[in-house]
C-alpha cells in the first residue's frame, strides 16, 4: 500500500528560505537549492515551497527559482503562494513543479479549482486550508501570510472540503492555526473531524515539535502525510530520525529496500 509522506515546508522570500516568528522578523535559513537538495537526500518524500512574498501584497513575483529546484532534485514538489490563474499555474508547472497549492485565491474564486483541474488534472491541484477552531467550530481563514490581513471567512472547514472535492481538487493541506508554531503536536481532533468527509489525500500541518508528534498523527488519524518546517530547519531532527521512529512504530513509510 501507499506509504505515509514526510514533507518539509520551506518558506521562500527573495530567493532564500526564511523563517519568521509570528509573521515578522524573517531570518534567512539558507539557500533554496541547498536545502532542497539536503532534504531530498535525507529521504523527504516531497517538498513544499511557500512563496511568502507573493500572497499577501498582491504582487506577481518571478518564480525562476522553481526551475533551479527541479534541476537539483528528483522527488515531487509543490509551490504555493500568489497563484491566482491558470496561467500562473502553468508557468510554475512548466518550470518543473508537480503541483500548485492555492489558498486565498480559491476562497475568492472557487471556480479556479475547476479550471486548474480541467487544465492540468486534479493531481496538480492542492488546496491549502488555514483553519482556526473557535468555540468548537472550525473556520477557514484567508490572507494568513500577514497578521494585519488575516481574517475569518466564516466558511466552515467541513463545508469547504466538500466543495473543493466537487470542484476537482486533488489534495488538501490542513493547517491548524491553533497549533501552528506551538510545537505540541498536530491537531488530531480537527484532522479526525475533517477526515470523515474527505475522500482526497489529506496532509496535516501545524504543531510538529518531536518525532512522537509524527507517530501520533499517523497512528490516530487517517492523514496521508505530515508537513513540518522548523523542526527540520532548526536541525532538531533529520528526516531520517523521524522515519526511523515511524518505522519502529510500524507506520508504513518509504525506506530504502
Amino acid at each position, binding site marked *: 500500500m501507499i506509504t505515509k509522506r514526510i514533507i518539509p515546508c520551506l518558506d521562500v522570500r527573495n530567493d532564500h528560505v526564511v523563517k519568521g516568528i509570528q509573521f515578522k522578523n524573517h531570518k534567512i535559513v539558507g539557500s533554496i537549492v541547498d536545502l532542497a537538495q539536503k532534504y531530498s537526500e535525507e529521504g523527504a518524500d516531497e517538498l513544499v515551497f511557500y512563496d511568502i512574498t507573493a500572497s499577501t501584497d498582491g504582487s506577481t513575483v518571478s518564480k525562476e527559482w522553481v526551475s533551479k529546484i527541479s534541476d537539483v532534485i*528528483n522527488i515531487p514538489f509543490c509551490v504555493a503562494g500568489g497563484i491566482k490563474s491558470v496561467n500562473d499555474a502553468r508557468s510554475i*508547472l512548466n518550470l518543473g513543479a508537480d503541483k500548485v497549492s492555492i489558498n486565498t485565491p480559491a476562497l475568492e474564486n472557487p471556480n479556479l479549482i475547476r479550471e486548474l483541474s480541467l487544465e492540468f488534472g486534479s493531481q496538480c491541484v492542492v488546496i491549502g486550508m488555514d483553519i482556526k477552531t473557535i468555540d468548537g467550530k472550525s473556520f477557514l481563514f484567508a490572507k494568513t501570510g500577514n497578521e494585519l490581513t488575516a481574517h475569518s471567512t466564516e466558511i466552515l472547514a467541513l463545508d469547504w472540503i466538500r466543495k473543493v472535492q466537487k470542484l476537482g481538487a486533488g489534495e488538501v493541506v490542513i493547517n491548524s492555526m491553533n497549533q501552528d508554531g506551538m510545537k505540541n503536536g498536530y491537531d488530531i481532533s480537527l484532522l479526525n473531524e475533517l477526515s470523515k468527509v474527505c475522500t482526497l489525500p489529506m496532509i496535516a500541518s501545524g504543531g510538529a515539535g518531536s518525532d512522537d508528534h509524527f507517530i501520533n498523527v499517523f497512528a490516530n488519524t487517517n492523514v496521508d502525510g505530515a508537513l513540518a518546517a522548523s523542526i527540520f530547519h532548526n536541525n532538531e531532527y533529520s528526516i531520517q530520525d523521524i522515519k526511523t521512529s515511524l518505522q519502529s512504530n510500524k507506520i508504513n513509510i518509504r525506506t530504502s529496500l
Partner: protein
Amino acid sequence: MSVAIVDCGGANLRSVATSIERLHIPYVITDNSDEIINAQYVILPGVGSAQNVMKHLESKNLNNVITQLKQPVLGICIGMQILFNYSAEGNTKCLGIFDENIDMFSESNLLKVPQMGWNKVEFSDAKLKKLNDYYYFANSFYAKTFDSTKAMSDYGSAFSSVVQKDNFLGCQFHPEKSAEAGVRFLKYFLTKS
C-alpha cells in the same frame, strides 16, 4: 544514442527532460513525426488528461506514428494509459497497443483518490527484482493486472504499475520523480534494444 520526448501538449516536460539530461543522453522534445521515428528511444511523458493528450496527438497525426514505432517506447502515467484501448477518463478512445481498458479508482474516505505518493512496485520476472522499490504515483485512473503486467502494486487492490508488450513499455509511476529508484528504472529502459 538519442531520445525523443514527445510533446503531448501537457505541462511539465521539463522533469522528464532533466532526468534524461542527468544521464548525459542527448534528447529532443518534439511533436515532429520524423524526429520521433528517427529517435533510438521514444518517451511519452505523463501530465494532463487522456482526452487532451489524445486530442493533441490526433491533431498532429501522431497517433498512427506512435503505434507503428519499432524502437523502444516508454509511456509514463498518462503516456502509459493512452497505449490502452480506452480510458474511462473523459470516455476516451486510445491507441490500443494493450488490449485492455483504463478504469477509475473508486473513491471513499478509506481509499483516497487520486492515489498520491510512494507505493511499492514488485516485478514478477526474477531478473527484474532488482528494480523492486518505492516509486512515486499521482493518478486517479489505473490498469488492472493482465497478461502484459510486468510489475504490480497495491492500491485497494492489485493494479499494473509496469506493463510491456513487444517494444512498448509503460509505467504508471513517475520515474523522473522517483529518486534513485526512478533513475535505475530509466537506465533499464535505455538499455533495451
